[in-house]
């Protein structure tokens, strides 16, 4: 009970930590440095403990009741909108909270060493805690808008931390790029939220709360508006999780301190998109078209980003493209409706990719902040612990049995195959080989051969302090054993991870198939969920190790397209087991082969590499090395055009709109000048003219009245003569 009432502490404590350290930084770093680190780590460690407690609490409940909602206060209540500041702690958010706080805690500890000499120490930890707060809000929020708050909050922290060393302009620009690209994604996300809210509202349920959404979303039917909603939300996911076409910010984001790359740009934030799709599974399951898009984008990104990773020389950039690629696998997983597999890979990836980045950080630390692998080499012996842990993570990401990555990645590929997406499977399979190649290339260049740095740097090479090594070791252990909680039945495990998550994804199954079907299911919603374990038991014999596809098939009662898709997956358990094992062996052999080649090429046979680079006149290599010129294309197509539009708008506003105003004023002035002139010269002129004429006439006539008698006589005489003449003439 204590836990149910105190879920909010998981979110609140990191915020308090952030506030304290932020205030300390604001007031000029008066607090002792040691305290700053303690507060920051404590502010993540306590939520970790509470989450662990939550895990045990959930386990103590029957599977159907393992979703705790705790409302803190009413957040927005206007018209049809009723949103609470509330938290949802279920199996999925429990996993996420554990990953965020667990990996987050280790990275915080590591940062104490890594950032120890930085003048912005307190500011750094304030941002890190703020990130943890936002991320926990994202995964624990009980409604979509609250999730969006966390969603943008992590974006803010990402912005702040990428540009942490903001005196170097490219860092600041990279931060800005990350935020704006994410905003483009968020634009789609926002439209998706609006569309979902209003569409479901028009059906009588104005809600954005996950529990209610999953209960009522069946009303939206399949396809159509659901597809639109799912795709809009997915646009947001491509931004946050760096998928095609919005992935370009992530490699640049490596400008931030390396622990930031580990926490935000590898382990947690970038996986938010995967989490979101898993959370909104009831929407995606109802839209096969949207799922197909998700899976395709994921698979293509996995291969595409991996291929760029082949030709990068910056150690962090290789890992960044690797992250994009691995995120692609997660999307492939959720895209074939194997949500649990996607989340599973999310978790193991958090372990090994976090470790890879921290290891890279240790290497960079040792190499006096050099990141170019061409200057590294032979670090195997001086950096013993770093090397061993890094190697563990490499084996995990490559997918060697029995490391964590093997189980999760292999499962995604298997589910892809089993659900009939053979083409995507091929892409994913090739991608796995690419992963092995670039990872072993990285290892070869960094840890093997001779060190290629200058003497000065070589002289300074040293293993990192203990505070940085312990997190490496713990993560290495997790990278090794982390996959064992999800060993599929086909490989002799019990698939605990999937059973754990299953209830979260199974409520998708009472949705399709029309209203009447729903009525029978949801009228007894709870009892239905309660019977799930039994349902599993019956299905276990039918399709061992195929929980997700089976679920989906169950979900697709009345939906023929899905049933035909999965038709192949029901051919009996023995064959499936055999096939699954066969695929596992094949993929392990395949990655060993690729890994070996990568290693061999970059240690002994650099000549082959050079020959490969020379193919087609070096064109291919150049294109890949320059990331397919996508940044340049975006710049030309979008940024430049936008700036042109902006400039045009500014000129238009100044010249045309304001010109109209000033023009009106100007013409009024001209007009008034003309009327003034008219008034002065014509109207007044007329008046004056009359006066002038009178005066002039008078003046002329005055001449006559001279007072001289002979003048008058002369005048009289002339007139008389004139009259006589006229009379005679007429």
């Amino acid at each position: 009970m204590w836990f149910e009432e105190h879920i909010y502490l998981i979110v609140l404590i990191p915020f308090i930590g952030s506030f304290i350290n932020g205030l300390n930084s604001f007031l000029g770093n008066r607090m002792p440095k040691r305290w700053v680190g303690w507060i920051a780590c404590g502010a993540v460690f306590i939520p970790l403990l509470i989450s662990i407690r939550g895990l045990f609490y959930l386990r103590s409940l029957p599977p159907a009741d393992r979703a705790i909602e705790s409302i803190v206060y009413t957040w927005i209540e206007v018209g049809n909108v009723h949103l609470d500041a509330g938290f949802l702690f279920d199996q999925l958010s429990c996993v996420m909270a554990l990953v965020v706080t667990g990996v987050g805690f280790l990275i915080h500890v590591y940062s104490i060493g890594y950032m120890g000499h930085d003048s912005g120490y307190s500011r750094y930890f304030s941002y890190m805690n703020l990130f943890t707060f936002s991320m926990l809000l994202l995964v624990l929020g009980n409604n979509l808008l609250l999730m969006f708050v966390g969603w943008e909050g992590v974006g803010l922290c990402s912005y702040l931390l990428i540009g942490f060393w903001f005196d170097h302009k490219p860092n600041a620009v990279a931060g800005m790029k990350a935020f704006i690209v994410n905003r483009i994604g968020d634009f789609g996300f926002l439209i998706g939220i609006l569309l979902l809210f209003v569409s479901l509202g028009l059906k009588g349920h104005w809600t954005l709360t996950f529990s209610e959404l999953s209960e009522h979303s069946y009303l939206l039917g399949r396809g159509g508006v659901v597809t639109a909603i799912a795709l809009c939300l997915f646009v947001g996911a491509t931004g946050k999780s760096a998928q095609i076409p919005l992935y370009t910010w992530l490699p640049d984001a490596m400008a931030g301190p390396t622990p930031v790359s580990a926490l935000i740009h590898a382990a947690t934030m970038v996986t938010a998109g995967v989490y979101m799709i898993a959370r909104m599974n009831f929407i995606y399951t109802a839209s096969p078209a949207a799922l197909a898009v998700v899976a395709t984008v994921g698979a293509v990104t996995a291969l595409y980003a991996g291929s760029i990773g082949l030709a990068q020389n910056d150690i962090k950039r290789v890992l960044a493209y690797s992250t994009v690629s691995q995120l692609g696998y997660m999307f492939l997983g959720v895209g074939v409706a194997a949500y649990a597999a996607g989340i599973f890979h999310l978790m193991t990836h958090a372990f090994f990719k976090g470790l890879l980045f921290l290891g890279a950080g240790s290497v960079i630390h040792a190499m006096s902040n050099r990141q170019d692998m061409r200057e590294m080499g032979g670090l195997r012996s001086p950096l013993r612990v770093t090397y061993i842990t890094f190697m563990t993570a490499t084996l995990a990401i490559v997918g060697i049995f029995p490391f964590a990555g093997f189980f999760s990645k292999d499962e995604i590929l298997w589910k892809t195959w089993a659900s009939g997406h053979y083409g995507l499977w091929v892409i994913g399979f090739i991608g796995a080989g690419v992963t092995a190649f670039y990872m072993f290339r990285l290892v070869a260049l960094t840890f093997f051969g001779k060190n290629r740095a200058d003497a000065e740097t070589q002289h300074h090479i040293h293993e990192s302090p203990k505070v940085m090594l312990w997190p490496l070791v713990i993560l290495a252990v997790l990278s090794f054993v982390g996959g064992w909680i999800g060993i599929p039945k086909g490989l002799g495990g019990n698939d605990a991870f999937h059973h754990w998550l299953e209830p979260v994804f199974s409520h998708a199954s009472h949705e399709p198939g029309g209203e009447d079907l729903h009525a029978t299911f949801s009228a007894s919603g709870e009892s239905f969920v309660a019977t799930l374990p039994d349902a599993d038991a019956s299905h276990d014999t039918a399709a061992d190790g195929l929980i997700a596809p089976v679920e989906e098939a169950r979900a697709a009662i009345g939906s023929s397209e899905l049933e035909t898709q999965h038709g192949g997956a029901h051919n009996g358990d023995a064959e499936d087991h055999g096939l699954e094992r066969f695929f596992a062996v094949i993929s392990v052999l395949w990655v060993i082969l690729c890994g070996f080649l990568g290693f061999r090429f970059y240690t002994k046979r650099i000549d082959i590499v050079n020959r490969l680079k020379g193919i087609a006149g070096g064109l291919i290599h150049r294109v890949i090395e320059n990331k397919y010129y996508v940044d340049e294309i975006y710049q030309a197509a979008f940024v430049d055009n936008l700036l042109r539009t902006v400039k045009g708008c500014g000129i238009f506003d100044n010249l045309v709109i304001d010109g109209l105003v000033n023009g009106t004023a100007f013409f009024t002035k001209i007009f008034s000048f003309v009327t003034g002139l008219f008034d002065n010269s014509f109207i007044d002129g007329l008046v004056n003219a009359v006066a002038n004429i009178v005066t002039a006439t008078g003046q002329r006539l005055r001449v006559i009245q001279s007072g001289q008698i002979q003048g008058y006589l002369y005048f009289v005489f002339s007139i008389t003569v004139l009259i006589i003449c006229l009379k005679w003439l007429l």
Partner: protein
Amino acid sequence: MVSHILSWLIFFPLIGAAIVAIVPRHQHNLIRWISAGATALPLALAIKVFVSFDRTTSGFQFVERTEWIRAFNIHYYLGIDGVSVTMVLLTALLCFLCIFASWGITKGVKGFFVLFLLLDTGMMGVFCALDFFLFYVFWEVMLLPMYFLIGIWGGPRREYAAIKFFLYTLLGSVLMLLVMLAFYFFSRDPLTGKHTFDLVLLQQQNVHIGPLTSMTLRNVCWIALYIGFAIKVPVFPFHTWLPDAHVEAPTPISVILAGILLKMGTYGILRISYPLLPDATRHFALFLAVMGMINIIYGALCAMAQKDVKRLVAYSSISHMGFVLLGMSSFTSEGINGAVLQMFNHGTITAMLFLIVGVIYDRAHHRDIEGFGGLAHQMPRYSVITAIAFFAALGLPGLSGFISEALVFIGAFQTYRMLTIVSAIGVVLTAGYILWTMQRMFLGSLKEKYKALPEINGRELFTLVPLAVIVFFVGVYPMPVLNLIKTSLDHLNKLVTGG
């Protein structure tokens, strides 16, 4: 017992102005402190209003009514409801803070504060008046001090800006005057049989008589009112006085201008156009929404084009006021509440932005965005405050701007789907120009000549921190403000939609 709280709110600054007027002109500090006192009491009263405001009724509260000019049936009639209460709070708060932002003014101190307090009276009066004539009087009262405050204490092009502002607003006033007279002559109080300026009475459509019952005149009246108010908001294409006035005005006046005066436009539409001409309002709703969308997008694009940071903030105001138009034209509870909340939020956020620009202008004596860089090094505290204001302006969730924008979107999406989607692009553009400005001014390396720039001082922090706290608070817990406004707004919405 009749409460005179609104009268005190309106006229206490005027009393302050009178006292300042008799203080010797070189007693600068005395003048400043008297002014602070003259705005502090209204702030205290406003807080009292906030506390004792009845959230459950849609009617007018704190009503005062006395006959003023018997021959024309004009009343001194005051009262506030959910539409105006947030504006009253905002006015009281910003006027108080702006006194402290005016501390640095050394030229004609006495005149400045007298005019400022007079302006305060005018603004407060506009938000409290329930008699059309009284409303008009306050509207004009506010105009004159503003003209002088820009024209005397402004920047290099102050006279141009002041005249532009004055003439533009006057044009609007004339149109409003005509409509006011139309309402007066074409109305009859059923009880007394007299013509009336009573805004509450005029809401009853059966009071309207003669030509005012014809749709043509009603539409003409609506348009005339719209132009009058649109100039104030300002709505495209009547907006170009705004950047000029903002850039030339001294910092506190820019704050008042953007924080309060702009709201009078949308307030006027909600207080007069909506209830008095509900049918015409419905007729022009789509038009209003389109104008909102244009404001959002066009304002953001123009903001991005600016080189002067104060002009940029001015254009961002145009963009943000577009959300108000979009929200209120949706005729949904979410939209209209979001619109009024946005009026309040924009008032606090943009006030912060202008204060922030003022801080750097006082130090560097220019506002050229490209002329700065790396200020975060030299002025870390200033940068933190700026970051809060900037992120609030770009609608970051957790800060107040997000709540109102989200509500506007939710409301507008129900009525105008495509318009809302297009408007939402503004969210991306806003992030663009805000972050770009942030990067150019605050990040990167510090220029040599700014190595000695002093950090933000206590007085400046005092003006900014309360606003930052409000921005945070409303973002996290908006209900106290929403509860204040929603009963009246839902009522108004029903009134207009006839539901």
